[in-house]
């Protein structure tokens, strides 16, 4: 197995029947080492089905392109799989994380009011740089009180949630009627008890997802919209660290350590 699933580069060879790309195109990719494919992006080259590959706008660097991948696709799908967010209030938990930071930026671009939760002062600054209208430190502040005050006791329409199980007790207290919790991770508690009656009384939808199981038309919509978003302004792509290809093990240790802000990237030409 060659690890790592995201990356950016230049199209170097076209397989039979490929018409969407030309040799020399700048691109970014996601789901490289996924869905049964053994060979990911910790290499000089990758071959991949063309629908997992997206043109990279000229003024977006390869480093930024390499951070998009699964985090940006996951953020878009969690946000927009259930319709537009214009005029809604969106809460992004972990608003400085790899997915969360893209979710904050995409939600703002989509016309939402955005609240982010974070765990430190540094991450507070990051979430604000992404465009969050309000940032709450969940370690030191009362998340429910701050969110309810911000929404004039209405609650939020969407939650983009990095820890469904761990956050559920808090989340249920700040949901508006007819709202949606979009779950893309739940490491704090993988088997939470669901108070279904409470969900019913507020007509709350739980939308859970992993990127590799979503339908291709939704992925295509995400790619097209992310391209529009990249082309329509300056975006923040947080790079937590950079390693040479031969130092891939160190790159993995940096990710496993858990205190990074942004995405760790590998220079495959070095």
């Amino acid at each position, binding site marked *: 197995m060659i690890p790592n699933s995201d990356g950016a580069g*230049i199209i170097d060879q076209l397989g*039979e029947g490929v018409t969407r790309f030309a040799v020399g195109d700048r691109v970014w990719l996601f789901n490289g080492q996924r869905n049964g494919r053994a060979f990911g992006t*910790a290499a000089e080259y990758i071959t991949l089905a063309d629908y997992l590959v997206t043109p990279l706008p000229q003024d977006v660097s390869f480093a930024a392109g390499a951070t998009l991948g699964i985090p940006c696709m996951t953020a878009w799908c969690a946000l927009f799989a259930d319709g537009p967010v214009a005029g809604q209030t969106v809460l992004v938990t972990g608003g400085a994380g790899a997915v969360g930071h893209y979710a904050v930026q995409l939600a703002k671009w989509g016309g939402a009011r955005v609240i982010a939760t974070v765990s430190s002062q540094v991450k507070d600054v990051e979430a604000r740089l992404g465009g969050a209208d309000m940032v709450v430190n969940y370690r030191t502040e009362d998340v429910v009180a701050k969110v309810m005050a911000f929404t004039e006791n209405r609650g939020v329409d969407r939650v983009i949630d990095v820890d469904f199980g761990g956050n559920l007790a808090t989340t249920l207290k700040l949901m508006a009627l007819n709202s949606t919790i979009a779950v893309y991770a739940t490491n704090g508690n993988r088997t939470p008890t669901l108070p279904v009656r409470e969900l019913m009384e507020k007509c709350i939808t739980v939308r859970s997802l992993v990127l590799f199981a979503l339908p291709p038309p939704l992925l295509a919509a995400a790619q097209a919209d992310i391209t529009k978003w990249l082309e329509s302004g300056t975006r923040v792509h947080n790079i937590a660290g950079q390693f040479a290809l031969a130092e*891939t093990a160190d790159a993995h240790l940096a990710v496993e350590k858990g205190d990074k802000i942004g995405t760790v990237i590998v220079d495959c030409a070095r």
Partner: protein
Amino acid sequence: MRAVWYERTGAAPTVLTVGEMPTPDAGPGEVRIRLEPPASIRPMSAAAAATIARWSFRA
């Protein structure tokens, strides 16, 4: 091509190997991508190029 791989699971430093393997060819419906160095020079935007062109003209 140069690549990093593992043949059994375990702590990254103990199982990852750096070496050479055959460069794959793109199959039907696939593309081959040369993964680019992240530190490569950021390509100039059209707006920046136009600005520099104006400076050059004035000079």
